[in-house]
């Protein structure tokens, strides 16, 4: 480390330039990570907060629009509820609606219809006020848009009215739309577009989107076999995220950009150390002639790249977190979470180090003989 530290100090301009590039990449990685967590939250936080292991949808439903297309009934629910290893099964309704409040606030809602006292009931799951028919509890994000307890939400175009009786503590969104929980019957009427005074056929009250399934701890249920019996197609909770509008497209795009950044960082660091090593050829030849072992030289150079990477990544992440905190307070879907940021940092460092390692291996190919003046 004797030489590494002194060279870092001596060529600080050069190393600072390189460090600035790594720092900028680190800033981008933090911001992208915040954006992808933010978008994921916006897309599926309503589903993530459900204590559901999997959903059973209509048989052969299209997986990327399962929530909007699927219709299942009581038979499927009963079949799943009777399975060994299934702790609870409850009907779940999901439909997107346009609405405005009696005070004129326009809002789109993802209506989650649930049975009172089931494990999906927000009063049971999140301790919200009980919802009776014609009532709704809403996501905290809807409250931020200006909806308060006591407001009346008017669904369009049916004109059906829902009274807001509570606001959930956390963000509950689905497909970038705020979630409102309401009793299953009200959900069924809303979905059918029932207007006041309509004669409602019975089948409206027999249909819902999916069966929410909660497995017992450690239970291993053969989903395919039960699907066969119940006439359903089941997706795990994570699989069902893909059915949230835009979710797959958004997350895969951002992930692709992040992977590109890691690759760019590895390449840039690799290229820098390649040029540096080539410039140091004569010096390395002298060191080897003087008896420095290959291990000594590799350790020294790798130590140098670790110092460079760690310091510049730390600075970049610091700036990224500061900028991210500012962005998070705007309506942009942005959320800083320790897990993804730590993961991204580790990847950035590891891949940067791989790039540097490939570059400094050149050291082993320098012939100490070149230290002796020009000719042989």
């Amino acid at each position, binding site marked *: 480390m*004797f*030489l590494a530290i*002194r*060279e870092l*100090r*001596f*060529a600080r301009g050069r190393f600072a330039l390189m460090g600035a590039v790594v720092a900028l990449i680190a800033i981008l990685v933090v911001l992208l990570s915040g954006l992808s967590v933010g978008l994921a939250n916006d897309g599926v936080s309503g589903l993530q907060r459900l204590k559901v292991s999997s959903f059973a949808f209509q048989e052969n439903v299209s997986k990327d629009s399962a929530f909007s297309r699927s219709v299942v009934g009581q038979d499927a629910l009963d079949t799943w509820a009777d399975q060994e290893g299934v702790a609870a099964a409850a009907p779940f309704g999901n439909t997107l609606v346009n609405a405005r409040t009696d005070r004129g606030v326009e809002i789109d809602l993802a209506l989650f219809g649930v049975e009172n006292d089931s494990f999906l009931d927000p009063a049971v799951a999140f301790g919200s006020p009980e919802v009776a028919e014609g009532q709704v509890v809403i996501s905290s994000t809807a409250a931020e848009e200006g909806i308060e307890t006591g407001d009346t939400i008017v669904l369009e175009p049916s004109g059906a009215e829902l009274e807001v009786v509570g606001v959930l503590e956390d963000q509950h969104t689905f497909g970038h739309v705020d979630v409102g929980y309401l009793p299953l019957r009200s959900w069924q009427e809303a979905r059918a577009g029932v207007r006041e005074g309509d004669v409602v056929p019975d089948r409206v009250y027999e249909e819902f989107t999916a069966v929410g399934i909660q497995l017992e701890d450690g239970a291993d249920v053969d989903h395919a076999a039960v699907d066969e019996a119940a006439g359903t197609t089941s997706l795990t909770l994570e699989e069902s995220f893909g059915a949230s509008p835009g979710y797959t497209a958004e997350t895969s795009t951002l992930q692709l950009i992040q992977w590109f950044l890691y690759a760019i960082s590895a390449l840039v660091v690799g290229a820098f150390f390649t040029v540096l090593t080539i410039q140091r050829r*004569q*010096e390395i030849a*002298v*060191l*080897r*002639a*003087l*008896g*420095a*072992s*290959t291990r*000594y030289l590799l350790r020294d150079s790798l130590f140098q790249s670790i110092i460079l990477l760690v310091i510049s990544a730390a600075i970049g992440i610091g700036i990224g977190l500061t900028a991210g905190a500012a962005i998070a307070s705007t309506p942009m879907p942005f959320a800083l979470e320790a897990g993804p940021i730590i993961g991204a940092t580790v990847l950035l460092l590891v891949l940067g180090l791989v790039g540097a390692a490939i570059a400094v291996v050149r050291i082993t190919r320098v012939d*100490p*003989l070149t*230290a*002796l*003046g020009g*000719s*042989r």
Partner: protein
Amino acid sequence: MSALSLTDVTLLHGDGDDTVVALDQISLEVEPGEIVAVVGPSGSGKSSLLAVAGALTAPTSGSVRLGDVDLTRTSPRELTRIRRERIGFVFQSGNLIPALTSSDQIKLPLTFGRFKNPRDPQRLLAEVGMEHKANRRPHQLSGGERQRVGIARALVTRPQLLLVDEPTAALDRQRSQDVVALLAREAHEHGVATVMVTHDHEVLHHCDRVLEMIDGQLNPLDGEHDQGWVRAAGPGQPLA
């Protein structure tokens, strides 16, 4: 026992019709405390001699012994250790590390491994007359000063053998005399067997023995070429 002993050393470069004989059946013994100069035209094989003696190149045939170690029967890793512990190199223009100050240049070889009895870098720096520039980097030193630091760097590990490649190539007359006098003094006082390759006939009088390399063959130098050369009484003796 000789510090350095080359017996019938031949070194060929290239192969087939392009074979060049760099060293042709060379034998050379250098005693501890003796400084030997090797002169000769460019391309005569002087640098090859240093490369073979310094364990940088394996000879095509013949044996190279450093004290009791046969370098031709030693693994590359062992050779690195031998270079580190037993051999010192002084290069043409000093070949110092740009990032290091004079005193760090001298400490550097000591970071390569463990040394039982190294010389004190600060005292060595004073001995080569560079203590007043301990914190200067190579670009702030003159050619002669760089060579002095380079000599101190080569000596700090107490090598048995010091190999010196054209030390005065970039120096004016007075500085050349000073640098070679310093090499001779170190060789004599510390018992270092020294082999110096040079073009500069004016510095030969500091040396105990002068050899001439022509077309890969090594022979004692014919005295008439250089009036300045005075043969010393013997190895380890002060010069007249």
